């Protein structure tokens, strides 16, 4: 069972306390109505599937409840880092 560092609690906790919330750094467009169908499709559905470093969101759902971002290696399943929502991409 992976240990995940919650950047809000500043503790490593077992993965069963967390829920994955998909790819990170996909901001909801400020003006959805102004988006073309193609842009909106990309926002809704198109996601990366990298082999290696992957930026993803997690929620410490059975802990502090906060959403945060993480860089995880999809090959080794190792977390490289975790950081608070709103902080720049690492």
């Amino acid at each position, binding site marked *: *069972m*992976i*240990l995940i560092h919650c950047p809000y609690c500043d503790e490593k906790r077992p*993965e069963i306390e967390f*829920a994955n*919330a998909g790819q990170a750094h996909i*901001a*909801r467009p400020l003006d*959805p*109505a102004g*988006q073309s*169908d193609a842009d*909106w*499709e990309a926002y*809704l559905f198109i996601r990366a599937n990298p082999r290696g470093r992957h930026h993803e*969101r997690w*929620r410490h*759902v059975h802990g502090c*409840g*906060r*959403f945060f971002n993480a860089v995880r290696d999809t090959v*080794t*399943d190792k977390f490289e880092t975790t950081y608070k*929502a*709103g902080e720049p991409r690492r």
Partner: protein
Amino acid sequence: MSGFRLETGGRIDRSQPVTFSFDGKAYQGFAGDTLASALLANGVMLFGRSFKYHRPRGLVAAGSEEPNALISVHRGPGRFTPNLRATGVEIHNGLKAFSQNRWPSLAMDFGAINDRLGMFFPAGFYNKTFMWPRSFWDRVYEPAIRKMAGLGDAPTAEDPDVYASTYAHCDLLIIGAGPAGIDAALGAMDSNKRIVLIDEQDELGGGALADPALWPWLERSVKALTEATNVTILTRTTAFGFYHDNFIGAVQRLTDHLPNVTDTPREKLWRIRAGEVVLAQGAIERPLVFDGNDTPGVMLSSAARVFANRYGVAVGKALTLMASHDSGWHDVFALAKAGVGISAIIDVRKSVDSALLHAAERLGIKVYLNHGVVGVNGRHNVSSVEICDYSDQRVHRINCDALLMAGGWTPSVHLWSHSKGSLKWRDDLGAYVPDVPNENVRCIGGCFGDWDFGTGAVIDVLPTPKDQSRIKAFVDYQNDVTAKDIKLAVREGFRSIEHIKRYTTNGMATDQGKTSNLNGLQIASSALNKPVPDIGLTSFRPPYTPQTFGALAGHAKGALFQPTRTTNIDSWAQAHGAVFELVAQWRRARYFPKAGEDMHAAVNRECVAVRSSVGIFDASTLGKIEVVGPDAAEFLNRMYTNPWKALEPGRCRYGLLLKEDGFITDDGVSARLAPDRFHLTTTTGGAARVLNMMEDYLQTEWPDLDVWLTSTTEQYAVIALQGPNARKVLEPLVEGIDLSAEAFPHMAIREGTICGIETRLFRVSFTGELGFEINVPTAYGRFIWERLMAQGAQYDITAYGTEAMHVLRAEKGFIIVGQDTDGTVTPFDAGLDWAVGKKKPDFVGKRSMARPDIVAPGRKQLVGLLTDDPNVVLEEGAQIVAYPNQPIPMTMIGHVTSSYWSETLGRSIAMALVAGGHDMMGDTLYIPMPGKTHTAKVSGTVFYDLEGARLHV
């Protein structure tokens, strides 16, 4: 009859005889014996029949790598365990063990005919032969093959045993308590580290248990470790898996070695998080591959040494060794010292260390260098072996009653590999050893390839002058895979070891190839003419040895499989004979049958009561979220499809929630209590999902909004009081709220008290009748419920369940999200476009409502269906077609989502999702069912009180 108990020696307690049975026959052993050693001491060499050919099989090993001697143990009704290794079963008085995969008996097995037909069963035989006709596979071939090929029977009764589980944390976890593991523990003992030392056997020592010279050291060491307060010792505990971040799963066997213990947990699952892991799992001796190497009496030389020195059992009276490695020589010398007769040493090598030759000479043992075994005589036990002089290919016979194999050693890198540590090939060992770790773990001793057993030659199959196609030289004993099978796989074009493994099933049995993987690799390597590292290595996966489902499940079975959520009113429903159903994790009353009523009658009565007088319903399971803060209205305005900012305090609104893709995900009526406070309700099953979604938007998209979300689902008991007499029942009990229609209209909320308890009183309706939903603090739920029942008695108040609730709401065309929608339904599809704020610039899902696929014609839309025969209640999920006489497969244009008998209307009603349904009003559609095709007319979804007059009274 070959094995026997030695006069002296071993760690067994000869003062404590133990009586047990095998295949119904009574035997005697001693405390400290395993089933294997005790049966051997009684001369039993035949332990089972092989998987595919039903060949007679005996012991190969003395430890958990044993591939052949799989047995079943009966411990009484429901307590049946198949496929245990006899080498790991400790005997106790009354133990009942049975052999497997034989009929009618172990010694005379009908299935052994397969062995004579063996030439017809090469690798891939089943795949190639039983291809046609396809329909025969499930009905004829597979059942027959399963009956013939197999291991123990699967238990059929429910397991009555209890299994415990626990978490543990330590600084240092040492897995394996042989000399290396014990040394590591002793070395770390004086630090302040919390140490856990685990071993799968009943006592610490590992290989040292078979070396009497080490026993004084072992005794001192075990005493020191036992006395150390920072060392936890777990014996009979198998570390079966190494998971991320030094998380180790282990199962401790607590009672199987004791007679008649059923009142304490049988096994305990340990989940251990360790700072550092030291793997000291040792190495497993490798069999040699030659014709007849599976005959009972052919076993690993180290096993014979364990049986003699640890258990005081000789595996035979005249033992012959077939070696390619020095370790076998040392074993044989130790056996001779223990009083076991040795007839010869055969070594495939041309020369060996002169010290070995001198030692053999001193003991008077005949030595044959540059020789190999090319045949084994005897069916149920070895009687003699044929050996070949490789210098002149001459074959002669040696009489013996056991043949020991010393083919070198394979480090036990299983857990290392679970942890994703890399391996490197060592040509000198002919084995993979640990290389670069992926966790904070290191390997020591035998599993690192670090041993003092001497050296050996690495070979695949012993050379033989015999016709290769006529010999049976086994590689994987448990799955009956021979060297020939692996060569055939290569000839048929398999190149990767992963493919060769799956085609031949080499290494895929319950022992995961502990004794066969490396031999299989060597043979494939020779056949492909490629070095072993170039053809790869198959993956090791947990569990290291088979574990019980009971231990893994622990307490999570039956009623404890998952939590059952109950409301405060649940006990009343239970006491009043409710029939329950599970809705998400909630236990809800489905209906309340009176004496003699079936569900249909009860639901009809409950529905009529609501329409004609008053019904009462436990709605406590509704999800509830308190939304508080200066930006609460703005937040809800962005989340829901309809406008919220203008909603006045004291009023309610039906809220429709979409996902960003434009599809309905939840709905519910919500109330504004104050400018900065809302009481939201969600569907019963959607509460957690909706809160998560709202938190997501609030935290990550709109962190500037000052809003707080709190789940209040379990804070309130909710009682729905519905029907024309609802107000009359409620009025005498409520204080501080004017219940009149003018003061308290439909879709409003008031705060006051009921029976002295503070309440949030909603005037809402999911039935189409005058209705109230009474929210009180959860602990008062049943109290208020009973007061309402008493007050309503004069109106014949009727408790109704979820089934009647479904009928009542369907009569009004109210949808259930998840039943009438399926995650691809938009507000327009569901006929809920009235709930979408047209003037709002944005809300979650708005942009998607203009997506090309969503504005395209032909989408499935929610409509009503009225069957032409009013007595036909369609099946929910039934498919709908436009024309009944189409060729099959017909074009299905939709399906029935809700369907009920409406006692109020005296006919059936249904809702359905139908492609283009909104434009089909009055059309006839067809619902083909077995034996009959039903017809129905498309209608609106509201079947009762179309103008809603009954709500506003």
